[in-house]
């Protein structure tokens, strides 16, 4: 999908730093992702990929600098940004004691979807959990949780999807499904930011790449 000339960048980082106690997880990071492009985030464990995704998703605020999503500041316009962004994280954001269907229903109702039941059922089928919709999440394998977390992300219909290690814990069929879903997201105009150690897979899905090392952008 081509962006109009006046459209703000999908994601802009202006001199962004994040500190946890004495540890700087990100240090003076600047980057601009144009509309219609997708970004592959690479780097070793602890390089700052997850921190960056959590800043963009508004789970945390930057210690210094500014993060903008579609031209909106993630601190000053937090709620507006939250409606645009969805995060697939290491943590699934799922309630263990609720069923898969109930987990999606809570989100669908919070989002004010016109038909939460239909949306939940449709997404469970899409991620291959239609037959397990009434099972509590506590009984799910890691791969099934990942599938349900993807359904949760799709429920939000975001314009910016942040995927932190989306292929982790998935079997080969699950990885294929995930690739298909990421492709569909991109085809529908969603900007994807993908953090993964599977670089070849990531490069086949993303046009841009940002390599992080100790919280700084470096040449890959």
């Amino acid at each position, binding site marked *: 999908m081509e962006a109009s000339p006046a459209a703000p960048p999908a994601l802009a980082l202006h001199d962004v730093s994040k500190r946890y106690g004495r540890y700087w997880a990100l240090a003076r990071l600047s980057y601009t992702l144009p509309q219609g492009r997708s970004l592959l985030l690479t780097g070793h464990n602890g390089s700052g990929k997850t921190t960056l995704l959590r800043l963009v998703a508004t789970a945390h605020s930057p210690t210094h600098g500014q993060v903008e999503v579609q031209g909106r500041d993630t601190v000053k316009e937090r709620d507006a940004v939250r409606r645009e962004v969805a995060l697939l994280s290491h943590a699934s954001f799922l309630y263990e004691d609720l069923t898969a269907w109930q987990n999606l229903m*809570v989100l669908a109702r919070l989002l004010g979807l016109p038909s939460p039941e239909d949306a939940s059922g449709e997404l469970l089928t899409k991620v291959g959990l239609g037959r397990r919709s009434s099972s509590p999440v506590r009984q799910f394998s890691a791969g099934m949780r990942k599938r349900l977390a993807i359904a949760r992300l799709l429920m939000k219909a975001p314009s910016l999807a942040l995927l932190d290690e989306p292929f982790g814990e998935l079997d080969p069929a699950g990885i294929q499904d995930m690739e298909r879903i990421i492709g569909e997201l991109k085809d529908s105009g969603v900007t994807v930011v993908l953090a993964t150690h599977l670089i070849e897979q990531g490069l086949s899905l993303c046009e841009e790449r940002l390599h992080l090392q100790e919280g700084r952008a470096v040449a890959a």
Partner: protein
Amino acid sequence: MRRSRPISLLKAVVVLLGKDLLIEWRTRARLNALIFFSLATLLLFSFAVGPDTKLLARNAGGYLWLALLFASVLALGESFRVEQENLTLDGLRMAPADARAIFLSKALGNTVLLVGLGALLIPVMIALYGVKVTLGAGPMLGILALGCMAVAAPGTVYSAIANNARARDVLLPLMLFPLIIPALLAAAKATTLVLQGDPMNQLGSWSGLLIGFNLIYWGLGFVLFPRVIED
């Protein structure tokens, strides 16, 4: 593409409260533990005081509220521990759910739980301590609801604060107990009046104190809670 639209605060509270009560029902073992803990506390007071039935009857209101207060620490702590597993509180924040709706749903859920627990404890207290409810069930339930609300509102805020601390089990009662002394005193006094009669018409004053305490702390929680859970 799905069309989402922001929902009202009230609707968000209903959705979140329904979710919390459903989880509470699904994990009934926790609920059972809470009931047995508070029953044991009531029983222990009667053993500690000994066979002095007049003393037991005189202090029955105080013992009831202490049992509820100790149980509330378990209930309040659990209400946010549920949200820590899989970082579901982050999931709610980023949904986005209004932080004030999260506060109201948690505080209401805790109130419902404590009122239910209190309703179970009152007949046990009557049987154990040999008291009768002189002013009737209506005033008793009214004081129970007001007292539980007074514990739940500040308790919900402090539970959210303590949730990220390493010593959260100790931190919550350390912060909560000194703060709710006026409410505890009013609830215990009012309960004693409901049990023993109110010849000096003092019940209104103690109820007024509870209502005032609730207005202040539910209001403060509503305003301050977004700052508590946001980075």
